[in-house]
């Protein structure tokens, strides 16, 4: 307990002694972690939107017109395909009724066709947009399937967007982590370097390496944690007004945006924990290396 008190006091001394540098680190770590948080949230929301769009993607498979065809067997065959998430069977009469409903007052035109031209067909939902092309290939290869209809361009665009958004989020994540880590690493390095003589003296008069190192590690961890706290406050302050504005102007996105406050607060707590861990790891590495080099006998 006594040692802890001394260490906490020395940590405070370090922060006060290098307060300008500390403030710069705090601001930089705060900004970088804010960017990291915003990018991640944007990416999560985009992912949410894309998965909603993906869940609404439908592949329509029309069977050949053959009275001997066992529709149940074909349905089982399609259901067993790995890309199929859900499937619904439409009989020719169901399909016609659906079409009539869709056409409204113009549905009388369908009566002119005489015999119902629509065969048995399946409305198939996939797990992911990128599965659609594979499913279509497999359906086209089946002799029982006459035609496959799907929104090909939309599928391709959603798949591409999903891939790009994942990559951008990953790049932003890596960049933010590297920049934050470098800033904390450099701050602690400068802090150590400016006190290298003191560190040497401390070691010479009997302070253990752990006793010397801990205040520096705590300084880095504390600055990162505070930076992450600022970032979290910034995210909460910007996110909720932001989504209110988006929901007002783009109502079709209403169900695709994360609005649960508990989720956002949990996310911010995670960000703060991540910031503190990042600061701890960076500080620990530089302090261990520096103190090892300075205390090594010639």
């Amino acid at each position, binding site marked *: 307990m*006594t040692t802890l008190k001394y260490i906490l006091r020395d940590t405070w001394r370090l922060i006060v002694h290098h307060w300008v540098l500390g403030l710069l680190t705090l601001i930089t770590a705060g900004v970088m972690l804010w960017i990291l948080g915003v990018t991640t949230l944007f990416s999560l929301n985009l992912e949410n939107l894309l998965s909603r769009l993906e869940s609404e993607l439908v592949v329509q498979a029309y069977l050949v017109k053959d009275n001997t065809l066992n529709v149940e067997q074909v349905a089982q065959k399609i259901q067993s395909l790995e890309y199929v998430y859900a499937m619904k069977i439409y009989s020719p009469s169901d399909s016609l009724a659906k079409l009539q409903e869709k056409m409204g007052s113009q549905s009388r035109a369908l009566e002119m066709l005489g015999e119902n031209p629509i065969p048995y067909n399946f409305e198939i939902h996939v797990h992911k947009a990128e599965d659609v092309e594979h499913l279509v290939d497999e359906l086209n290869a089946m002799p029982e399937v006459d035609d496959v209809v799907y929104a090909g361009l939309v599928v391709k665009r959603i798949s591409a967007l999903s891939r790009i958004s994942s990559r951008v989020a990953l790049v932003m994540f890596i960049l933010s982590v590297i920049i934050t880590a470098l800033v904390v690493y450099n701050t602690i390095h400068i802090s150590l370097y400016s006190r290298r003589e003191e560190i040497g003296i401390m070691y010479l008069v009997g302070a253990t390496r752990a006793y010397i190192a801990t205040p520096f590690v705590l300084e880095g961890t504390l600055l990162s944690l505070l930076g992450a706290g600022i970032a979290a406050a910034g995210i909460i302050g910007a996110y909720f007004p932001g989504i209110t504005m988006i929901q007002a102007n783009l109502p079709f996105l209403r169900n695709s945006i994360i609005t649960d406050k508990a989720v956002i607060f949990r996310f911010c707590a995670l960000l703060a924990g991540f910031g503190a861990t990042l600061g701890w790891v960076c500080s620990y590495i530089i302090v261990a290396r520096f103190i090892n080099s300075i205390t090594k*006998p010639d």
Partner: protein
Amino acid sequence: MNITFSEVTKTFEPDITALFDVSLNIEQGEFVYVVGQTGSGKSTLLRLITRELLPSAGTVAVGGYDLRRMRRADVPYYRRDVGLVAQDFKLIPSLTVYENIAFVMEAMSVPKRLVAERTKDVINQVGLWRRRSMRPAQLSGGEQQRVAIARALANSPSLFIADEPTGNLDFHTAAEVMKILFAINAAGVTIVMSTHNQSIVNASRKRVIELEGGKLIRDEKGGLYQA
């Protein structure tokens, strides 16, 4: 704490021999002057005792411990029993006189109350209580040297290493510092002190170890600065 050097050689890169084949033994409670010209190896000898340096050949043993075999984690504990006074004082500039001395005990997790008592004791011993709140830069050279002595005394060490402690001081201040060192020695603490100060060595007639070009050329009890 006795000190034994057995055939100790210390070389520095690329090819500088600071000490060559030095063997000596210093008993507990002795007062030993290490003399010699600049570059003769005095500081190297002292830094081998404090384990700032390791010998290139031979062994240095303090209190029975072979310093080369000492684990790195044990070095701080060893140094707590070795009071060190350097010519350049080695005080922490950002700390006050009081904090510079208290720090040594704080690093050993000594409770605050005991730290306060002992710090007051040693500051009084060197006569600097009124200067306790000042930083090293606000003190004269002699006062800084006294702070360094007080810090070295804080842990009640059994061995006192002083590297030219009077090097930067005028005659009167040097005499004051020596008075403190003799008092410490009288309490049974081994003192090894390097110096260029002839009058101090000649006045006290203690054991003198003389080095020249890294070699031990004289080891004389009750000796003078020059043979």
